[in-house]
């Protein structure tokens, strides 16, 4: 993290931290920029990734090393990606599309059920959202192209960005991203620990599309022992049914033939017993 304006939080593991300049990004980190904030990540391979206010991003899988290679899930907000070189193994995944920058600079805004991408320079490829496995035919965007798409609909490409899109961008995104890598290259800052996350703080992530939220189950499993967290999990179980196995492990235990037979004899099936615990 080489630039930070305003408050921003980092969720690492099950703990919430106050983000600070100089913090190194790790796989699984969730970054949440405050209402009037701006944050910028820089990588050793020259890639810079800036996030505007209210941006929520998860570093889904980033291999160890100094490059920006990896998958980043942007749930909402504005993001500017610069310095990407040809062949970079970097993907920006959103609920609307998956962006695979070829090279150059791309800016995207994701909010609600709509997402837009403007290619400042170079070119980039867009595929369908992760829920659909990126199966739709990829769209190739060149410099100056502006893509707008809505969830479940085919997107459209325009020759210039819309006024709404430009208006939604942080002012800083209209300029080249400044490089502050030299300042933090040799200096690592540890984020300040705040507290373990509450359900409300990670609710959006737990309700994300299955490919994103499923790996989070094991991560946040320790928090299920917290009564409030557990209660909230149970209340929202229909949005993340994969937690059923964590909340009611007994439901998934292998059934002993005798007990099952006894249960059948008594007319009281095991799942009904588990459900009774709810």
């Amino acid at each position, binding site marked *: 993290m080489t630039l930070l304006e305003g408050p921003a939080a980092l969720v690492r593991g099950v703990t919430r931290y106050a983000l600070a300049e100089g913090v190194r990004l790790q796989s699984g980190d969730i970054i949440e920029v405050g209402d009037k904030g701006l944050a910028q990540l820089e990588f050793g391979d020259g890639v810079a990734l800036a996030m505007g206010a209210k941006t929520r991003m998860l570093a889904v899988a980033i291999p160890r090393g100094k490059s920006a290679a990896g998958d980043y899930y942007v749930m909402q907000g504005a993001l500017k990606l610069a310095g990407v070189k040809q062949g970079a193994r970097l993907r920006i995944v959103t609920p609307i599309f998956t962006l695979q920058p070829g090279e150059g600079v791309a800016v995207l805004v994701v909010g609600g059920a709509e997402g837009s991408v403007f290619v*400042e320079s170079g070119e980039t490829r867009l595929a369908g959202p992760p829920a659909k496995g990126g199966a739709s035919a990829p769209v190739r965007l060149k410099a*100056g192209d502006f893509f707008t798409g809505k969830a479940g609909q085919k997107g459209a490409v325009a020759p*210039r960005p819309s006024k709404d899109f430009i208006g939604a961008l942080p002012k800083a995104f*209209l*300029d*080249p991203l400044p490089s502050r890598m030299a300042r933090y290259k040799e200096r690592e800052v540890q984020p300040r620990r705040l507290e373990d996350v509450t359900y409300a703080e990670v609710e959006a992530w737990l309700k994300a599309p299955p490919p994103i939220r499923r790996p989070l189950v094991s991560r946040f499993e320790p928090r299920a022992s917290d009564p409030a967290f557990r209660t909230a999990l149970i209340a929202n179980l229909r949005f993340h049914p994969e937690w059923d196995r964590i909340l009611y492990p007994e439901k998934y235990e292998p059934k002993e033939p005798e007990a099952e037979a006894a249960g059948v004899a008594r007319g009281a099936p095991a799942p009904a017993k588990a459900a009774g615990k709810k």
Partner: protein
Amino acid sequence: MKLIVKFNLVFVLVFLLGLVAAGTVSDQLLQKNAREEIVLNARLVMESALAARAYTSTQVGPLLQTQMKYNFLPQSVPAYSANEIFDVVRKKFPEYAYKEAVLNPTNPRNRATDWEVDIVNQFRNASDRPEMVGERDTPSGKSFYIARPMQIKAEACLYCHSTVDAAPKTLVDKYGPANGFGWKLNEVIGAQIVSVPTEVPIARANRAFRTFMVSLTAVFAFIFIALNLMLWYMVIRPVTRLSKLADQVSQGENMEAPDFEVTSRDEIGVLTQSFNRMKKSLVEAMKMLEG
């Protein structure tokens, strides 16, 4: 004719000649300075505009290059910044004007008007002509202008002005596809024209001339009075009294009168001493004749 009259006639004649000569020289000098000031002002305005253009072109434009991909920012255009800066200057100096008069401009406010078109065409017919200066009548009085050709010398200019397709989309969005295209390399597309009022410096020169002449006349008048007083007290009055006494003595009257008082050692004093000696000698001679 009395001595003082002769003296004053000569003095007035010399004064008038001096006044005319000084007036002629100073008027020419002041008018020349006023003209030079006008030209200097015009050149200053022109150089300021060129500096604004260069600053915009080399420093502001590159900074806004990325933003131009989102919105066309006229602030990145040298002509715009020069005009904007000069508009601020005009609030305090409304008689001054700077315009980048172009035959086919992108921004309509830069379109050349009738007399400006003539200047541009003169430059187009003689592209090696570096500058034109002249005067023209305006509703607010005479105005001096200095004009320099705007020639497309860099390929970079054609990025925005060659064809609609090649121009930045944001520029076309803002100004439309009709104007400001089709420019060619080395073509004179317009002229930078600075107009400065001649009235103000000329009026200032005239004021300075009047002040100078009035001051000079006042000085002459003071000298005139002072010299007349000096002449009266130091020459005319003693000579008149001496002459009156000499008249009386020459007619044998007032021979017993006391010696004329010698109050100075100048020529009048010497004359008085000589007269006193002459009177004494005359009295002695008269006494000898009577005795």
